[in-house]
């Protein structure tokens, strides 16, 4: 029996009387690439933020590797083995790409508390950060300040930062939003291979239907805060009510 890596059990969340999520359950198996789709306002972002620890659910539970995460703040959740890249990828614009990544590597070991040795003198962390930047294909930009980078490269830096924490599960909120067609193709091209190689499970939200079908091996469709359907891409494609909700039209 395989215990799912991430389990969301019957979570509900309301904002000022508006029910954003109603008893949503979701389970992500180890090694899966799981997509969370649905039209605007379906509750994708709410669910994402709930798993990240930015919101606490009104009811229900989130468990990771059998451990309850429900009330943990974001910064504690990271140390459980979850990496996060938010929708608007603006890492730390005042720092170089390398400094961004080194900081994330040091944060994993709690070494950001050190107020004495220079950041750049933490050789092991610098080496590891350079390695991660090479994975996402951005090492030649490492000495550039992050604010100078175009969106697509920023996104890659943000994913490098998320991977610096050696996650078992990577959470990406609309990774392709705001990227150009070429940048999208690039990300969809290198990400699956990299994650498989690292053994990282992926849970992501996305609007781009075509990319979802290419990336995901299982899909959960949300509609008006509830799970409409769940299954493999082929199943979801054949499900007509889903297809309509997916495209954002009323069924």
């Amino acid at each position: 029996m395989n215990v799912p890596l991430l389990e969301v059990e019957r979570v509900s969340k309301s904002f000022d009387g508006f029910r954003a999520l109603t008893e949503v359950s979701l389970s992500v198996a180890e090694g899966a690439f799981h997509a969370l789709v649905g039209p605007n306002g379906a509750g994708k972002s709410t669910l994402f933020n709930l798993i990240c620890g930015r919101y606490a659910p009104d009811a229900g539970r989130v468990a990771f590797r059998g451990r309850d995460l429900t009330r943990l703040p974001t910064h504690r959740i990271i140390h459980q083995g979850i990496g996060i890249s938010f929708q608007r990828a603006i890492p730390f614009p005042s720092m170089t790409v390398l400094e961004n990544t080194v900081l994330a590597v040091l944060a994993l070991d709690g070494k950001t508390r050190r107020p004495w040795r220079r950041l750049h003198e933490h050789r092991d962390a610098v080496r590891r950060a350079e390695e991660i930047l090479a994975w996402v294909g951005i090492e030649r930009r490492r000495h550039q300040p992050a604010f100078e980078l175009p969106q697509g490269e920023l996104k890659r830096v943000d994913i490098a930062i998320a991977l610096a924490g050696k996650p078992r599960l990577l959470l990406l909120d609309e990774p392709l939003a705001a990227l150009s067609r070429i940048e999208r193709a690039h990300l969809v091209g290198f990400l699956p291979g990299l994650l498989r190689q690292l053994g990282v499970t992926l849970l992501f939200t996305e609007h781009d239907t075509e990319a979802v079908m290419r990336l995901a091996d299982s899909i959960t469709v949300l509609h008006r805060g509830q799970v409409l359907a769940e299954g493999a891409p082929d199943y979801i494609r054949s499900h007509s009510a889903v297809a309509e909700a997916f495209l954002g039209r009323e069924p």
Partner: protein
Amino acid sequence: MKQLPTFVFVVLLVLPWLLPAYAVQVAIQALVLAGFAMSFNFLFQNTGLLSFGHAAFFGAGAYTAALLMSKAGWGYLAALPVALAASALVALVIGFLSVRLTKIYFTMLTLAFAQMLWAVAHRWYNFTGGDNGITGVRPAGILGTAHGLYYLSLACLVAVSLVLSLVSRSPAGYTLRAVRDNPARVAAIGVSSFEYVLAAFVLSGMLSGLSGFLQLAWQRSAFPDLLFWTTSAQVIIASILGGSGRFYGPVVGAAVLVSAQAVVQSHTQYWPLALGLVLLALVLFFPAGVAGLFSRAERRREEESERAAA
């Protein structure tokens, strides 16, 4: 340009032997304000939090030493550790209650706390002497002389800038700027920003207390105006005047501010008017401060030499 701080330091080492007695007093004031403004700007530059209550820590340092010397007969230097601890403690309490707030709320709350301390010092005649202050506190021996105090202040300024530059370049310093840049992302690399910002606040407050401690020796008395909001405003002005985006900006600003005040006040009593005009011109024409002017000139030189090379 890299050797500039070292060059300035050497000039500062010989300066008191070249200046008349009055100018040495002005120079001490500039050194004290420079250290104070650096401590303030460390917090402002790295975390983006604009404190309008740094007088609280400055005053806490001065009053702690003054009370220990006048009431318990302590020596000046012996009171230093306690003065630093008192400033750090005041910063810990105020910081704990205010660093979670952002922008204008943080600014207003720090102002409110400092004004509360001022009110206490102003009214509590039995303990602080109220608006009569604590007078006749003078360090014994060489520190009671102008030259002695000058070198002590210079040593403190060097120590403050070494500590702050060390912290700024460390992982902890980067974390502070990360919190300023993008607090949500900081949580998502597994760091809780509160403790870092609070630690920076306490460090900034403690080093401000060091400046207050030096100020006490300069004026040989402690009055409630050390805790008044105008004292907090002074470091903000010095930092903006010199360029708060640069590490040594506040030092330049403090030097300009104190010398300008000395010159203007020897001719007219309208110093606040002159200050207002200078600030107006500065904000309108040189938003990066006086230190910004230097780097602008430097960049132009570089561009010209590049053009010459091409």
